[in-house]
């Protein structure tokens, strides 16, 4: 997890860039998809409505054509004496009956051809004399018995002037199965006397074929009787309540116009048209949801959009990854360089901007290295100068005193002692001035110290005794020149201000692969106060010595001072073991 977050931080530019691209691509494509869908839906419904109205016109034409055939057959029948004879004459003579039968048969056959374009038609006559004629029994196998009491007949007789169009619900009788049928009927009258009825029936499925082929998949077509009862439909399973709803909204809708209707929680577009010829209504319901669905398969559109978005994202991912790769590589390298003291360069990149940055950075690194080198050289020179200054620090005071002492010795007639003192002084000066190298062997340092102590003993007496404990193994080890002397000098001049006498030990030995030099006195000692300590060692510059040792040999080497008031002081220096060649 932390690793992941770390990784993300490293690539944050890429992630930010990619996220922004992601969001914008998705937002844009979703917005475009929705806008497009909305627009095309609206446009589609508009065009659909227009074509639908044309379709309604076409259906109206078809049905009215059929209606006019029917009505004209009815008119012809009303005028026909043959029909009247068949329906009015009573069964006095069987031959009359047969002749009447032949008459109506011929008459119907003549007009039957007229209706031939339509399938499933039957022309039925029923007379007051109980005569019945069914011209194509198979298409509407109705019996006189059934028809006589049927509501269709009753309704027709209620209004004898009008042509009725009604729906005959399909039934099963003992002898036949009667399909749902659409029946045009009229009473045949002569001077207010009804002598018979004519029925022109067409099977509902054949009637349906007049409009079905125009009706789209998501469209429901209803033909309603004037009363609102369904005559024919490509969907016959509407409940009565739904039929009422349908009728209500149909009445609301303008003739030939369209309105919206909610039925069964579904939204429909309702187109309606009145067919005055047959007193019926043509109603077309279009399921808006299904219509939209059939316009575009939203699923596919969304799938395609999603696919495009995915591909775009993939491309964006790869490209931005490529663009930011050099960037994050640069950052990684810089971080690495930081850990390695800027030792090295960042690699060059093909990306122009990043390349500029990295070359500039490299140039900057170069200059930085250059400056640091310069500073180092300067610093080194400064140190050497300081060291030289320290090394040359045989104070004129010491020289004056020593020379004065020599003069006194000569005056006291002790030439040997004077010569010895002068030899010691010469040796001191030789060590200090003569040898240019920075280091010398312990042996030489010890000789130097012996000469120095000798001079001091001659001048001030031997109240402070000096002992040398030098391990033979360390004799040929190299140490920086005159590093021990200042501490010995310090002990002579400051360590015994109170006690006046005591001992001084100089130890040199090897321990733990280190060269240890110790200057131990049992003089006054100093308090643990660092302020005072510094004061005590003013002439030497303890810090200076420590710094120089560290600079020269590294962190683990240096100088250490332990002191207790009244008990003495111990100065301990450690150096690496460097054998003289």
């Amino acid at each position, binding site marked *: 997890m932390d690793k992941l977050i770390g990784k993300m931080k490293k690539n944050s530019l890429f992630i930010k860039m990619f996220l922004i691209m992601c969001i914008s691509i998705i937002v844009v494509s979703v917005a475009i998809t929705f806008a497009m869908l909305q627009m095309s839906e609206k446009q589609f419904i508009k065009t659909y409505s227009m074509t639908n109205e044309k379709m309604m016109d076409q259906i109206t034409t078809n049905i009215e054509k059929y209606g006019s055939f029917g009505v004209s057959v009815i008119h012809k029948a009303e005028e026909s004496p043959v029909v009247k004879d068949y329906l009015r004459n009573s069964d006095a003579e069987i031959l009359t009956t047969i002749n009447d039968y032949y008459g109506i048969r011929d008459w119907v056959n003549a007009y039957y051809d007229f209706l031939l374009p339509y399938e499933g038609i039957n022309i039925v006559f029923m007379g007051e004399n109980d005569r019945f004629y069914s011209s194509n029994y198979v298409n509407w196998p109705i019996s006189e018995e059934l028809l006589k009491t049927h509501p269709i007949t009753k309704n027709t007789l209620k209004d004898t002037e009008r042509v009725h169009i009604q729906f005959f619900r399909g039934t099963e009788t003992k002898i036949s199965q009667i399909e749902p049928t659409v029946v045009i009927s009229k009473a045949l009258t002569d001077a207010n006397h009804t002598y018979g009825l004519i029925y022109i029936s067409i099977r509902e499925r054949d009637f349906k074929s007049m409009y079905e082929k125009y009706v789209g998949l998501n469209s429901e077509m209803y033909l309603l009787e004037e009363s609102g009862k369904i005559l024919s439909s490509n969907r016959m399973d509407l409940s009565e309540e739904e039929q009422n709803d349908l009728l209500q909204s149909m009445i609301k809708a303008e003739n030939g116009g369209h309105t919206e209707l909610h039925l069964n929680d579904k939204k429909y577009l309702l187109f309606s048209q009145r067919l005055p010829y047959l007193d019926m209504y043509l109603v077309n319901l279009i399921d808006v949801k299904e219509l939209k669905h059939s316009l575009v398969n939203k699923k*596919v559109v969304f799938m395609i959009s999603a696919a495009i978005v995915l*591909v775009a994202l993939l491309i964006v991912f790869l490209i931005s990854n490529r663009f930011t790769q050099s960037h994050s590589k640069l950052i990684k390298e810089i971080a690495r360089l930081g850990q390695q003291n800027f030792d090295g360069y960042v690699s060059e990149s093909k990306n122009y901007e990043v390349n500029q940055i990295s070359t500039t950075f490299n140039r900057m690194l170069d200059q930085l290295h250059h400056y640091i080198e310069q500073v180092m050289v300067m610093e080194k020179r400064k140190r050497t100068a300081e060291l030289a200054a320290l090394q040359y620090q045989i104070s004129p005071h010491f020289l004056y005193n020593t020379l004065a002492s020599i003069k006194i010795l000569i005056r006291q007639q002790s030439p040997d002692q004077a010569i010895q003192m002068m030899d010691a002084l010469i040796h001191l000066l030789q060590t200090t001035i003569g040898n240019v190298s920075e280091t010398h062997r312990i042996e030489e340092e010890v000789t130097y110290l012996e000469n120095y102590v000798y001079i001091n003993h001659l001048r001030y007496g031997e109240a402070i005794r000096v002992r040398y404990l030098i391990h033979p193994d360390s004799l040929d080890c190299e140490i920086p020149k005159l590093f021990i002397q200042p501490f010995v000098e310090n002990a002579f001049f400051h360590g015994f201000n109170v006690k006046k006498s005591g001992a001084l030990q100089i130890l040199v030995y090897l321990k733990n692969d280190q060269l240890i030099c110790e200057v131990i006195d049992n003089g006054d000692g100093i308090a643990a106060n660092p302020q005072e300590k510094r004061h005590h060692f003013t002439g030497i510059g303890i810090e200076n010595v420590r710094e120089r040792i560290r600079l020269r040999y590294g962190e683990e080497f240096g100088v250490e001072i332990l002191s207790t008031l009244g008990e003495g002081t111990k100065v301990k220096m450690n150096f690496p073991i460097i054998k003289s060649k």
Partner: protein
Amino acid sequence: MKRTLFIILIVSALFLVGCGNDSGNGKSKDNENTITAWAWDPKFNIAALELAEKAYDGEEEIELKVIENAQDDIISKLNTGLASGTLKGMPNIVLIEDYRAQSFLQSYPDVFYELTDYLNPEDFAEYKVTPTSLEGKMYGLPFDTGVTGLYVRTDILEEAGYTVEDFTNITWDEYIEMGKDIKEKTGKYMMTVDPGDLGTIRFMVQSAGEWYLDEDGQTPTLANNKALAESFRVYKTLITEKVAGIHTDWSQLLAGFNNGEVVSIAQGSWITPSVKAEESQAGLWAVVPIPRLDIPGGVNASNLGGSSFYVLNTDGKEKAAEFLSNTFGANEDFYQQLIEEVGAIGTYMPATTGEAYKEKDAFFQYQEIYADLTEWMEQIPPVNYGVHTYAMEDILIVEMQNYLNGQELEKVLENAQKQAESQ
């Protein structure tokens, strides 16, 4: 870099194309084992086909799809389809009435698939083989028999002092004589006829081994046709003596005997289920041979209606032929089921010895009606119906009208002959 981009573009393009192609695979393939059939009458012909589908036990799976159409619709659809020279939208199997079969076979000889190899013509009633064959080759698989019978109400006969035996193997004149007496006594018509449909004339003529046409199936023989003349005479006598009433459609025919207003029915055996439909009359009916024409060659057996299955020369014709051959052409048990479940009597002779044929029907006073009808079926005189049955009848109906209205019999038949010849 450029190559990567290019690959990405190609891949995405392919992906999108792939998306677009998805919709192309939804097309459903019509099952090759589906055979379609056109037939009319759901209670009879279609029920028989559906029964056959169950009985089928051939090697290949077959799914039968029966499309119901009125007979007239089938005729007009066949005529339009075949005349246009295309078999597109046509079924594999079609049911055609025997009277019309020759007209189709002769007009469209290449359209029908020869069934000679699929069945044995000798297995079928001889009178059915003639209309279903052309030039010695079988094209139709004979289905139901239209063997005629005289269905009589025994109770009414008894009431008027007659027995069933009195009506067995009689002539039409004897029938009319007794009928007049019964009419007088009970007020009931002996039978009803439809003046607009000469079915009665048709079976009368065939009962004497004659037809409207010569044996060649082409030449009209309306004049000088003793059987036709005798039939006309009997028909007119039936009406004028008030022995026969009239009906103008199927429902009136059925209403007549179902309501007990008619004493007898002379029809094809397919009327049996309709008679039995009126359960209150169970035990009151008997079936006897129809009366014969009183002329040389006249027998007490004839045929009315009946149809056969034909296979069209479309894809799947072998399967359709195999289906018919496996069921209607060979399966004796299937014919037993046909009688038991549909009440249809086939014309496949080996099946007639089966159990169902010997059934004693309680409705008909335990008479073995199927056995009897089958026996009469074998006596039906075979005739060549030829190609113009209904055209002849259109002429004859008009002439019958003239005859009923008093014109001379000879003259009306000569007129009819003239009209037929001029057609």
